């Protein structure tokens, strides 16, 4: 009898425990099904230059967000209208946190067209249905791809540093002179090239030494009238108006052009020819020399007084016309070079804050925003210029992306005294090459 009671009790307990275990297991499976994102799907755009073609590559990443192993056993790719484009049986085991990367054609060869056309994939694919085994329970859910981008910027770097280009232009120096004058110009060109985080800027300066006996002021205008593109660069003309105030020898410097290269982290090399240079104006010594040369002609003495007067007047007229003709002066050339691929540059970010006219504790916040390239290491220094004794606290927030924005927030607390200005900039900062 006791044996019978014991067996019945044992069976009842075993059945109860088995049902409890099954119930808990089903509950876990139900939660997994409800969360619907046991496996997260990302569609990654990778832009990469291959030869002359720009590829918009598509990668699919399946990431296991479940805190236990998940087996993906079937994948269905559906269009935005819900129709099935392709499907495939898989046996993909993903540990917690593990992800796997694949191309669309890895699911089915019929998806090959999406491999290098991310935008078409985004236009046409609506969802990816995933059948998985979670906690010994089969779940099926639609995953809607989250889209991210990765730009392989270095794939576009020039492979050669011998890129060259040229342009021709006319630079005209026009002087407005209100009285008789004598001047001589010896133009020289200065070219400086500065490569920053995404641009290379070449600045050209024309320098002329002008000796004048003018009544100041005098306006000198330097213009450049044309530009051409070269490789990555565009040459932008600028017009500079100078205002002379000196009555003695004056050095005139005018910026006549910028060369801007829109290259992220890469500076090209190039050769640019100097623009032509011309000048016009009065030149008393030249006129005098012309007249003297005429009077020294052998035939001069045989002319009548009327003829001599006519010859001199003619010579004056001719000399005046001649000297009005623009003279082209030389054409120099300049080069600038830069390394390819990664370029380390130093950028100093300076922001100025006008502190509050407080006589007690006060707080001011300044924010500077910069855009710079991923992968560029930047050294930024902080400079304190206290006018009075004060304490400062700083909070620096950075966010690095391709063409990223970096935020620099500096909070300054002034104790008891009025501050005038405060200048600060960021500390050493490395922008990470993260997948966005």
């Amino acid at each position: 009898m006791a044996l019978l009671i014991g067996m019945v009790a044992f069976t009842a307990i075993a059945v109860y425990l088995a049902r409890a275990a099954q119930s808990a297991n089903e509950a876990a499976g139900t939660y997994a099904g409800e969360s619907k994102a046991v496996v997260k799907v990302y569609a990654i755009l990778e832009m990469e230059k291959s030869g002359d073609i720009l590829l918009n590559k598509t990668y699919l990443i399946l990431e296991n967000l479940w805190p236990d192993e998940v087996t993906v056993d079937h994948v269905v790719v559906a269009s935005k209208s819900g129709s099935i484009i392709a499907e495939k049986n898989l046996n993909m085991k993903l540990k917690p946190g593990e992800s796997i990367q694949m191309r669309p054609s890895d699911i089915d060869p019929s998806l090959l067209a999406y491999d290098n056309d991310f935008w078409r994939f985004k236009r046409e694919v609506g969802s990816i249905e995933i059948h998985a085994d979670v906690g010994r329970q089969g779940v099926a859910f639609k995953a809607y791809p989250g889209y991210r981008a990765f730009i392989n910027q270095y794939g576009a770097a020039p492979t050669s540093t011998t890129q060259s280009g040229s342009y021709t232009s006319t630079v005209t120096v026009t002087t407005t002179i209100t009285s008789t004058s004598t001047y001589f110009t010896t133009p020289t060109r200065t070219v400086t090239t500065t490569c920053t985080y995404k641009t290379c800027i070449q600045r050209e300066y024309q320098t002329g030494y002008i000796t004048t006996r003018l009544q100041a002021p005098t306006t000198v205008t330097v213009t450049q009238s044309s530009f051409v593109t070269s490789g990555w660069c565009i040459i932008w003309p600028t017009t500079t108006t100078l205002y002379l105030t000196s009555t003695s020898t004056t050095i005139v410097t005018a910026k006549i052009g910028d060369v801007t290269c829109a290259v992220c982290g890469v500076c090209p090399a190039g050769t640019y020819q100097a623009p032509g240079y011309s000048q016009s104006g009065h030149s008393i010594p030249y006129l005098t020399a012309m007249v003297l040369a005429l009077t020294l002609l052998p035939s001069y003495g045989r002319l009548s007084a009327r003829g001599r007067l006519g010859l001199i007047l003619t010579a004056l007229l001719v000399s005046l016309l001649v000297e009005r003709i623009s003279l082209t002066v030389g054409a120099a050339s300049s080069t600038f070079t830069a390394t390819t691929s990664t370029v380390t540059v130093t950028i100093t970010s300076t922001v100025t804050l006008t502190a509050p006219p407080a006589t007690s504790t006060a707080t001011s916040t300044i924010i500077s925003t910069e855009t710079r390239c991923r992968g560029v290491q930047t050294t930024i220094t902080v400079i304190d210029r206290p006018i009075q004794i004060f304490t400062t606290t700083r909070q620096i927030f950075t966010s690095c992306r391709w063409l990223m924005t970096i935020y620099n927030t500096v909070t300054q607390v002034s104790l008891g005294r009025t501050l005038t200005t405060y200048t600060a900039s960021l500390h050493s900062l490395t922008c990470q090459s993260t997948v966005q």
Partner: protein
Amino acid sequence: MTILPVVIAILFMLLFSMLSMAMIARGFLSGIEASKREAEEHQLKMKQWVKTYIYNVSLCGTLNLVVKGLRGQPVSRQELDVKGPVKVLVVNEGGEAVNLEHITVEALGSIVYEAELNVRLPPGGWVVYAPRDLNLPDDYDTLREVLDMIILFGGRETFNVTVFQPPPLTYVEVGEAGECYEP
């Protein structure tokens, strides 16, 4: 008298079997319960995928710059300037549709905007606001300084993830002819 030891032995075996079963079941059930708890916590984490981006760049302009840079094509100064109007973009980056029912905007410690919503965001769906729609300043830098939080309510969930950066470039749509559309 001879049956007593047999009964005692059977009772002892019964007790021993029950104890063994209880110990095995306890270990088994604790694992299942832990898995269930993690499932509940995991479900909550999923809900935080509604994100608010605040930015002032043109995504299409930036994409154009990237494409031209990669192709080695020259760009004009106008193209180099990728600034755009300030936008407040609310995006559902999760895998489920979300119903947004209420929005609260806090700036300088006060609620500056509050409204009922009836917005359903499918996975990948978005809704965009101009700052002035939310009683916020249009100037980006000023907005960064004054904005405390944008809180969105939907169902029993609260979403308050706000970032001052543009969304990924892939948020644009590029048509077959290469035309670009952005939120």
